[in-house]
């Protein structure tokens, strides 16, 4: 129960859709979503495969709690070999699409091969078909979603699609569902585009049942109570969204600014949650219109924003005057502080474009930051940028590059390579602020030491959502640790990584973990699913998933040498603020981390470790 126990296998080359039973033995070891789909991917593809070749596969995966009344139980993930990184990719999204897939009767969709011409997958309960998408190709995710709903005459269809960025092979292209929720990172949208798959549309009328309904209703009700009574999930996130962090992280001296040249941004307050709620002088309205919850979420951190109609980015463009997905903290940082841009309306516009054209605002913003630094040191000139003045702080440069990158035109095509390839192209690989080819999110590893170790070892490349030690190091959850010291961080990172792998495999949202521990989550999973899902078993499973992903990456060609950080973070001390004088103390943490993981000094899981984890 909770699982639908069915997989949809779509062979794009052959044009077939077939139903298979879910491998319940694997479900018992990997639960669902991130863990279970990674197991399938590892069994079905050669990790050395070119991510953009037909031999790569991509899996849409839900968790057992997706589509239930557990708070935040609406998540799905896309698991594949990442186009940006060449590493295992697992990009998690909210909205309503994941739950709809369950209601149609499917736990997962495994997509393989490549369609001879553009198609979209239409799922109505057990009926799944590939339909021509020639007329949708070359259009945005917003247009695609609207068109598919209208074509099938059903506004209750949920759509997950790529925009032009995914079609054109922008290496950090995202897959966008429900207009502004996204499987955002690692270039999963480019993989989808390489397969000529424009969209997956879904409508389901089947129900999701649980194993022990009485225990499940009690456990989920108890969980909701914990969320509402917690200051972060009950007040901070619903009121301010994740943007509550902008001023907090800036004040802690760990807000990467201008491609990590600085760690505090003088314009942070202008792009913060507080600024979003302020009345604009121009039109008397606020940027933030309202909050929005994803499926089943009792937190509601999502932002719905409206752009000032007189702002230069949207004047004469009424299609951007309506409300849509507003800035989350990561996007506001990447589009703003990373480039020194503090124009809130411009950032909101760029964020709309990220959703509409389907690309990751974090990697995009960070890559623009790297380009601006190369421009400032003269490594690239207006000859390279089609005349664009890429100066730090230029809102015009940012909005223009967002337009160009979405369509992979002009210098936007270069930005679309991601910072690693772009900086290598111009002879400055050291200016790419990335790990395993993926750009950093919004926390400076020098000012929050645990994040440095987390970035270096994250299986999908630099990522805050694999071990969010910010919770402990800055917010004091579940207990406060000093962000400037390395001591104890190896164990902290490992614990966060393993627990996160559990949450990402369940169908729940990671943001619950500001309030929930596995003691809150375990009983919900245990009541929903057959089998023993005690906290101990879940933690062991989290570690198993982490090591399975690690094995995939090692077989793909990564080694311990890739568990590192850019030279800037390791050698250039932060110049001012509370973290002044700090560099990332990775060397002090990594050996201990390997040891705690049961890996060799080179970062290879030992046979004993693999045996202990039943791998």
């Amino acid at each position, binding site marked *: 129960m909770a699982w639908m126990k069915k997989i949809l296998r779509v062979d794009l080359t052959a044009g077939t859709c077939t139903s298979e039973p879910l491998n319940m033995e694997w479900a018992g070891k990997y639960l669902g979503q991130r863990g279970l789909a990674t197991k399938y991917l590892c069994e079905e593809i050669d990790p050395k495969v070119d991510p953009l070749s037909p031999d790569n596969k991509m899996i849409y995966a839900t968790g057992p709690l997706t589509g239930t009344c557990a*708070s935040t139980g609406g998540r799905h993930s896309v698991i594949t070999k990442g186009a940006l990184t060449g590493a295992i990719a697992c990009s998690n999204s909210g909205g309503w699409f994941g739950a709809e897939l369950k*209601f149609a009767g499917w736990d997962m969709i495994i997509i393989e091969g490549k369609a001879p011409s553009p198609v979209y997958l239409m799922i109505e309960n057990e009926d799944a078909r590939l339909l021509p998408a020639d007329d949708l190709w070359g259009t945005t995710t917003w247009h695609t979603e609207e068109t598919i709903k209208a074509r099938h005459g059903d506004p*209750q269809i949920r759509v997950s699609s790529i925009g032009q960025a995914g079609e054109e092979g922008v290496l950090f292209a995202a897959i966008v569902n429900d207009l502004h929720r996204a499987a955002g990172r690692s270039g999963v949208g480019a993989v989808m585009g390489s397969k000529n798959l424009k969209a997956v549309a879904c409508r389901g009328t089947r*129900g999701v049942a649980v194993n022990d309904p009485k225990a499940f*209703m009690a456990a989920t009700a108890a969980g909701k109570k914990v969320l509402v009574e917690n200051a972060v999930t009950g007040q901070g996130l*619903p009121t301010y969204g994740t943007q509550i962090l902008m001023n907090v992280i800036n004040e802690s001296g760990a807000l990467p600014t201008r491609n990590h040249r600085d760690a505090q941004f003088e314009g942070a307050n202008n792009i913060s949650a507080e600024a979003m709620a302020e009345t604009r002088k121009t039109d008397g309205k606020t940027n933030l219109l309202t909050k*929005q*919850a*994803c499926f089943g979420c009792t937190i509601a951190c999502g932002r719905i924003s409206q752009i000032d109609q007189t702002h230069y980015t949207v004047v004469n463009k009424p299609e951007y005057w309506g409300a849509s997905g507003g800035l989350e903290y990561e996007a506001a940082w990447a589009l703003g502080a990373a480039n020194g841009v503090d124009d809130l309306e411009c950032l909101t516009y760029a964020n709309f474009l990220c959703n509409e054209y389907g690309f990751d605002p974090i990697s995009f913003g960070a890559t623009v930051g790297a380009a601006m630094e190369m421009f400032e040191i003269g490594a690239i000139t207006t000859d390279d940028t089609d005349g664009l003045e890429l100066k730090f702080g230029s809102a015009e440069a940012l909005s223009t590059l967002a337009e160009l990158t979405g369509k992979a035109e002009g210098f936007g095509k270069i930005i679309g390579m991601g910072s690693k390839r772009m900086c290598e192209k111009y002879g400055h690989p050291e200016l790419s602020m990335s790990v395993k080819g993926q750009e950093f999110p919004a926390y400076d590893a020098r000012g929050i030491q645990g994040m440095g170790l987390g970035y270096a070892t994250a299986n999908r490349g630099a990522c805050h959502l694999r071990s969010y030690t910010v919770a402990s190091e800055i917010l004091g959850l579940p207990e406060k640790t000093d962000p400037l010291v390395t001591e104890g961080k190896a164990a902290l990172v490992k614990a966060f990584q393993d627990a996160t792998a559990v949450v990402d495999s369940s169908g729940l949202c990671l943001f619950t973990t500001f309030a929930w521990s596995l003691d809150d989550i375990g009983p919900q999973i245990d009541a929903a699913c057959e089998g023993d899902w005690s906290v101990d078993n879940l933690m062991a499973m989290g570690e198993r998933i982490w090591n399975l992903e690690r094995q995939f990456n090692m077989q793909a060609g990564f080694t311990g040498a890739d568990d590192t950080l850019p030279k800037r973070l390791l050698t250039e001390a932060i110049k001012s603020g509370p973290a002044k004088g700090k560099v990332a103390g990775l060397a002090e943490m990594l050996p201990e981390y390997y040891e705690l993981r049961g890996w060799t000094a080179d970062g290879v899981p030992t046979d004993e470790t693999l045996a202990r984890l039943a791998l």
Partner: protein
Amino acid sequence: MQKSLHIIAEKCTGCLQCEMACSYDNEGVFNPSKSRIKVFNFHEQGRFVPYTCTQCADAWCMKACPVDAIVINQQTGAKEVLEDVCVGCRVCTIACPFGTINFNTDTGKVIKCDLCGGDPECAKACPTQAIVYIDADWTGLDRMKDWAGKTDTQPDAQA
């Protein structure tokens, strides 16, 4: 004293917990497509609006039913569908001006809100109190109180 489901749309976040509670109570599974309450997303306006049967006093559905399958629960005031009497003719779905009674193809009967016998699950599940179950004669009481609080008829002590 009868109660009514009362909706305060501005509080709704679109989480659909109400739809899941409704479907679970009625169908035993989580299945918003069989919910008697629906949340509508007016995306460009940034508005979510839950909507369900208001239990009309002079109910169009009940009057239209040719087999008297819709009856009043005297205790709650709800218009309830008698499943074993309903013949699935769907005349009520045409008669209802608000669209809140609908045909269920799985059972061949119509479904509508029955106030869960006087303890509506949707109101209990709503995390933001956008759906409340309150005195049917005084659904405006909170709004009256809000406005009353803004009314200043006291003499100005400083004058």
